């Protein structure tokens, strides 16, 4: 079966810095893909190429089997690729429903079609049912986002992306700033997304998170893909070795010893 996303031989350089070298990435339907690598390994650059923030120097992107060119995040969003930003792109002064519908508010005609007013009730209802479907526990969609915990905010950010009929949700360090108790809830939510026919690309430094939710793990190192592993057939040690390059060095050392 054709994968949902196929990135082929993506290269990208910024001046003299080669950020990505011939990187391939596939993402299947209902798959959670862990994307790992050290700082500067090219994870964020690769995701920015996928969302159209950057244009690749070389390489192709196929979505649902069709070759695509994303010239802006708007294009990739149209296709159903949503990025949940690390810095939680929510407006704390707006309530939950307001954030979920920010930029695409529901309106209804008033005064005989003369003017369009916000459909507060419709948005509250739809937001509540969206949270319900995703099993996100927030007492009320009327609560201001700044009163929520970090995990709840992360959940609202995910719900927001789901509201756009996302097929692919990219999450950049979703658990980095969370309390332990909250991490579990966010991971639960990520696993939940599969049931809604959504694929997830998860960028994280927390190996235990990656191993808890991912089906497959791609390892980047210095702009190259150095590992594409099925989670059930690998170990944390192996992945860490690939990230740090220790495996290569160890082999090198072994060879020299011979």
């Amino acid at each position, binding site marked *: 079966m054709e994968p949902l996303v196929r990135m082929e031989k993506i290269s990208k350089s910024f001046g003299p810095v080669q950020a990505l070298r011939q990187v391939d990435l596939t993402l299947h339907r209902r798959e959670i893909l862990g994307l790992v690598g050290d700082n500067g390994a090219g994870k964020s650059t690769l995701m920015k190429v996928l969302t159209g923030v950057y244009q690749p120097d070389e390489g192709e992107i196929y979505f649902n089997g069709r070759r695509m060119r994303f010239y802006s995040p*708007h294009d990739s969003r149209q296709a159903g690729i949503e990025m949940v*930003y690390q*810095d939680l*792109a*929510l*407006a*704390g*002064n*707006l309530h939950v429903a*307001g*954030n979920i519908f*920010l*930029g*695409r*508010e529901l*309106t209804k005609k008033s005064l005989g079609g003369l*003017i*369009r*007013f*916000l459909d507060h009730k419709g948005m*509250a*209802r*739809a937001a*509540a*049912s969206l*949270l*319900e479907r995703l099993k996100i526990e*927030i*007492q*009320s*969609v*009327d*609560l*201001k986002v*700044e*009163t*929520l*915990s970090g995990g709840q905010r992360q959940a609202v950010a995910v719900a927001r992306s789901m509201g756009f009929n996302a097929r692919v949700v990219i999450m950049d360090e979703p658990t980095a700033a969370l309390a332990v108790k909250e991490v579990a809830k966010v991971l639960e939510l990520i696993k939940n997304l599969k049931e809604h026919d959504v694929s997830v690309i998860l960028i994280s430094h927390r190996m235990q998170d990656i191993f808890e939710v991912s089906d497959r793990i791609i390892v980047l190192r210095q702009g190259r893909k150095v590992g594409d592993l099925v989670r059930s057939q690998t170990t944390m040690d192996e992945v860490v070795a690939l990230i740090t390059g220790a495996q290569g060095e160890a082999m090198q050392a072994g060879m020299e010893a011979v």
Partner: protein
Amino acid sequence: MSTPTVARAMPRARRFSVGAVLDRFGIALALVLLMVILTILSPEYFLTRENLTNVAARIAFIALLALGEFLVILTAGIDLSVGAVMGLAVIVLAWLSHRLYEWYAGWYYAGAGLAAGLPPPEGPVVLTTISVLAIAATLGTGLLCGLLNGWGFTRLRLPHPFIMTLGMLNIARGVAFLISGGSPITGLPKAIRVFGAGNIRLFQFASGEWFKIPISFVVILIFYFVFWVFLTQTQTGRHIYAVGGNPQAALYAGVDVSRILNKVYMLSGLLAGVAGIMYAGRINSGTPKAARGGDELDAIAAVIIGGASFFGGRGTVVGTFIGVLILAFIRNGLNLLNVSVFWQEVAIGAIIITAAFVDVLRLRTARRE
């Protein structure tokens, strides 16, 4: 979408704590308290019809400036030019109505209009037409100043709206003095004066006296209502709050942040133009004194007292209106009590600082980190 699940997630989590009540109605309570105190201290004058009508008529232009300033402060910006733009509007209004009148009268009495049987320049038709044209040009002036303010921030990318609007303050003031030559242009058509000085007779007392309310007060009530609807019920209003709360989030969500900012500064300029009409109408003159400045600081003070946050994204139209009233009643009350103008300034300064501190406290408790 099944109904039971919705019903479960929907209940409103209103907390009926003292803090929540104070947060929501604190400013209104402060206003009531102030009025009670003033009533006790000045039992003969404060609550009289004359005094309240007087206050209602006096707050018109500050109320309009404060409304525009509130929109700008909602986006975490500042508009220092509203006072000077109002002054420029006052001059444009008076100057243009005089020029239009002179031009038409000259042409009419030269024979062309008289012979053609056109209406005389002193007649209501011509004067009303002149008024409408002058008012349109005045509003256009305000709108243009606001648009330039917005562009300074969004296109020239000047570091902070403080700078662009400070520049505009000087430019508008300078142009107002250039047009007027520094002296007042006195005498305005009735159709203009009515906005600033007219009254609506509501009903007649047994004594034969009329209960009147100033038209300017009705005008600001209409403006405040329209802007309340605009901010709370429309998509653009929602986006103004979002831009003030987190401009980056708004940008990611596809909100055209520059466009929202331009709109906000344009509305602030437009409202300064409307304030100019009130101001000129009230004193029946276009005086360059109006452009001297200082009114923008009162407008900012009213917005801050009204509970809006300088950090952006927080505050209400109703709060701003109460802020205007509090400022007006303090001035009025202290006048009634014969307190020196200089002490009034000290009192208002202390209240501004208190209001801003309350905002800081509120943010500290509301936010969860």
